């Protein structure tokens, strides 16, 4: 079965993917910070029953994972593959997750709230992703009756998330804006509007691969469709800025040279570090969008980015590897993935 990131989506020269998250809680049960082990266990059981109820239209598509049974490396790999957040794996006790076979829908249990419903889609598809998240929420609300107040909306552990409990995000590839040094200014301006734009891969202070998450954190006082529309309109503005910045540099022979050299290294290298891989694949993705490189899809690039990170490679090989071994395996998988694109 293909995964959600292997399906093409709108505006994908700049937009990698879209994600909707809905925070929900069970009424009358302490929020996660104040939960006992028994409360956690009971909450996992209740949500499990609701999802796997034979009469529920969700039942056949979800897999269950008990976080307590995972090694630290397996948990990190879940974050690398974008199934869960880094915050969610910072504590395994009493936490669980369920995910659909195509990984588009994930339910995280006992993280910041009792339940986080997450839906991802390739490209700029916030309306479609929201519809799917909304559908799961409606199905699960019947047996679970989520905590809600007419004035405060969905009740959440942090007062920041009250209201819709929704964080809508678009993941953008911004190599030209990163190169021109514009991203800190854009992030800073957005933060005054309740929107955030942060690097997705690698250290917070030095993100890798020029992939950014743009998200709307305004949850109270506007409806879900309004929040999605605001995010979409802001994303379209940034997409236009990125395209304009690309237009300025794309005819430069030095840039073309960098694109082809980057592809050359990915096609032939025998050792690739995480940093080098991300910096090269970012340039190659830009080369595809600029029409320089053909025969390589955005979906294949997206899948590669998710699958050659350290913890996921260690899972793939079944062991913890020395740095050189890891770099060799990464280079091999990249060559393998790019082989089909043919000789240019």
């Amino acid at each position, binding site marked *: 079965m293909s995964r959600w990131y292997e399906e093409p989506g709108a505006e994908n020269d700049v937009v990698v993917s879209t994600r909707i998250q809905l925070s929900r809680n*069970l*009424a*009358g*049960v*302490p*929020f996660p*910070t*104040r939960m006992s082990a028994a409360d956690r266990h009971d909450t996992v059981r209740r949500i499990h029953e609701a999802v796997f109820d034979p009469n529920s239209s969700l039942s056949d598509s979800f897999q269950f994972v008990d976080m307590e049974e995972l090694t630290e*490396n397996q948990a*990190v790999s879940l974050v*690398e593959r974008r199934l869960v*957040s*880094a*915050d969610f794996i*910072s504590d395994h006790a009493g936490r669980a997750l369920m995910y659909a076979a195509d990984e588009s829908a994930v339910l995280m249990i006992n993280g910041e709230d009792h339940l986080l419903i997450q839906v991802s889609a390739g490209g700029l598809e916030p309306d479609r992703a929201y519809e799917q998240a*909304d559908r799961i929420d409606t199905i699960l*609300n*019947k047996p679970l*009756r989520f*905590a*809600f*107040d*007419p*004035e*405060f*909306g*969905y*009740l*959440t*552990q*942090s*007062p*920041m998330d*009250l*209201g*819709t409990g*929704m964080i809508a995000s678009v993941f953008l590839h911004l190599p030209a804006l990163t190169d021109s040094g514009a991203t*800190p200014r854009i*992030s*800073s301006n957005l*933060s*005054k509007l*309740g929107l955030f*734009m*942060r*690097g997705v891969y*690698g*250290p*917070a*202070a030095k993100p890798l691969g020029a992939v*950014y998450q743009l998200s709307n954190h*305004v*949850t*109270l*006082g506007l*409806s879900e469709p309004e929040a999605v529309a605001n995010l979409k309109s802001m994303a379209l503005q940034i997409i236009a800025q990125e395209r304009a910045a690309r237009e300025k540099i794309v005819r430069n022979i030095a840039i073309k040279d960098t694109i082809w050299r980057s592809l050359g290294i990915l096609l032939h290298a025998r050792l690739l570090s*995480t940093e080098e891989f991300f910096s090269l694949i970012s340039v190659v993705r830009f080369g595809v969008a600029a029409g320089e490189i053909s025969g390589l899809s955005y979906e294949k690039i997206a899948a590669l980015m998710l699958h050659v*990170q*350290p*913890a996921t490679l260690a899972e793939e090989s079944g062991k913890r590897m020395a740095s050189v071994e890891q770099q060799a395996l990464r280079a091999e998988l990249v060559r393998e993935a790019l082989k089909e694109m043919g000789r240019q």
Partner: protein
Amino acid sequence: MLCQYCGRNPAVIHVKTIENGELSKCSLCSECARELGYGNLLTGLGQDFNAILRDFFSGPQEREEVRCKCCGATFSEIARSGKVGCSECYKTFYDRLLPIVQQIHGSVSHRGKVPGAGLPQVRQSGQLSVMRQKLREAIDSENFEQAAALRDSIRALEKGGEP
């Protein structure tokens, strides 16, 4: 603790990321958090959630603090952690949480999805919502005596009694 990015200002936000196959933590000041796209609704405006909670909790300590009947949390525990104890706390500490919610989100109320459309549900009586509106106005105008009386009537109404 100083910001790990600029090394100059005090860190106000702690973020978790994955670095080289491991979970790692990074502490940032509000300015760097804004530039790197981390933070929350308040840091974006140059405010600090913890400072706001402290402000709302600067009054004299109550000798016997009210505890939420559902989860046992006191308001001071909520203010210290920034985490509400359970969904019932929003009723138990309504009058003290309301100004905090207003400070974070502005003076607004929920306009999004209402769960269980099509299912029978308990509707908030018109009277209750009018009284909550009055309570908000009383708190806004710092008319605390009236606010306390309104709060008691609202609680009585919520329990199904007469105000």
